[in-house]
């Protein structure tokens, strides 16, 4: 194969590649051997440490599935609340009036530059001090508050970028036929921008799902990670096996979301109806949201 980095390979390069493959294979095998050796010595590969996940359903019904449900609940609530908020702030940042545009920009930039964990800790204390939310519900409220504040500002940037990617002719034509500013946004720009933004929004969901784990580790919200800790304790410090299982669940869940996002993106790019503008997670550049914890 040819790429920007190297040409199609001749016989010498092919021989060298075979050699490199063998060397790399040996290195990976050595590394695996070393890891398995350590795990074996500590008795972490004994069937007794793993059997609860394969035989019987107690580990799943008592710990893993309720934890997963809490994770999904927090993520879904956050995205449902954050989306309209983000849309409002994203549109406000494009306003013609400086007194709307500037404050919206300050709010968005402020919440984007603060770690989610700090927002969650703040939320927890806020609900404890100023509201009558019961202490059982507080962690969920705090996790959702933190995630909403952060992700609404990230989504605001996605919305803004989505509207900006549309060709200028769209709003010019809309204004030429006499639509008002609100109508241009509502009838012409937003419907197209939403389609263009869909892949980026789905990618942001991955970030939200991953960030719920913070609530389990620091705020005692009983989601997947914290239920794994409880489970590990119940089965006698079974950390390695428990963490492997929940890691696989996170990977499967997020990989499905990522694949869905790129499928959407491909479909939208092929579609003839839209203007063909598509916003991916990589495009909404100042974001770094896709990198968040």
């Amino acid at each position: 194969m040819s790429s920007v980095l190297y040409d199609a390979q001749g016989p010498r390069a092919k021989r060298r590649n075979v050699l490199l493959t063998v060397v790399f294979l040996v290195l990976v095998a050595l590394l695996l051997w070393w890891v398995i050796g350590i795990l074996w010595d500590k008795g972490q590969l004994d069937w007794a440490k793993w059997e609860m996940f394969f035989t019987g359903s107690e580990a799943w019904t008592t710990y893993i599935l309720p934890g997963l449900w809490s994770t999904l609940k927090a993520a879904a609530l956050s995205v449902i609340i954050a989306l309209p908020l983000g849309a409002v702030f994203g549109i406000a940042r494009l306003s013609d009036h400086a007194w709307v545009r500037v404050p919206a920009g300050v709010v968005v930039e402020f919440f984007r530059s603060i770690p989610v964990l700090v927002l969650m800790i703040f939320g927890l204390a806020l609900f404890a001090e100023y509201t009558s939310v019961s202490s059982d519900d507080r962690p969920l409220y705090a996790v959702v508050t933190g995630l909403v504040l952060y992700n609404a500002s990230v989504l605001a940037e996605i919305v803004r970028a989505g509207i900006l990617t549309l060709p200028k002719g769209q709003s010019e034509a809309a204004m030429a036929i006499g639509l008002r500013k609100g109508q241009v946004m509502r009838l012409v720009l937003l419907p197209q921008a939403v389609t263009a933004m869909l892949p980026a929004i789905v990618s942001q969901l991955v970030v939200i799902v991953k960030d719920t784990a913070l609530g389990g580790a620091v705020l005692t919200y009983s989601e997947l990670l914290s239920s794994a800790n409880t489970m590990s304790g119940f089965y006698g410090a079974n950390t390695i096996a428990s963490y492997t299982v929940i890691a696989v669940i996170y990977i499967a869940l997020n990989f499905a979301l990522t694949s869905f996002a790129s499928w959407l993106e491909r479909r939208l790019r092929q579609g003839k109806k839209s203007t063909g503008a598509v916003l991916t997670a990589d495009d909404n550049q100042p974001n770094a949201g896709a990198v968040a914890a």
Partner: protein
Amino acid sequence: MFDFLEDYDLLGAFWTTVQLTLLSAVGSLIWGTLLAAMRVSPVPLMRGFGTAYVNIVRNIPLTVIILFASLGLSQTLSINLGADDFDSINFRLAVLGLIVYTAAFVCEALRSGINTVPVGQAEAARAIGLSFGQVLTLVVLPQAFRSSVTPLANVLIALTKNTTVAAAIGVAEAALLMKEMIENEAQLLLISAIIAVGFVILTLPTGLILGWVGKKVAVKR
């Protein structure tokens, strides 16, 4: 109003945050560059390894990785990275977790930089008779690095914010201090504002300066 601050080591906590950020940044830049080299190499097995690493690590929450470093590596397997006392063990494990996680994003940032270079650039360079090394060092990589600045800056900013996850294993950085102060003092809004401003000071200039540099050096196409 600010009296209570004398009882806490605010600067020390933010200094730990900065240390975590810098050490992890250097480590993940090295490991991420190696991964990127594998992901674009002509050897299919290395490409597969790089792709698998990125797809696996990117989809696990950082919190899970860092907690695993503490509970799994240190407490279960007694891998302490050569440290003896509780504080430095957890600090080193946090840096390890941050490197493992951030390297996947560094790899993607570098790869996206390489992807912006049109194949025609390399083909033209080969056509005028440049060798493989010359094509790489004179034509392709200079353009690739210039397009990588902005995505790498975003990774650095995200890393700065992600260091707060180290609070989950008791590293005495800014978020852990915030939690402690909120529990002991009745100054919720003031404490939160101070910590928030601290992070704004750490991340905003990085974003502005590197964003400006990134725009300036980017290849206009």
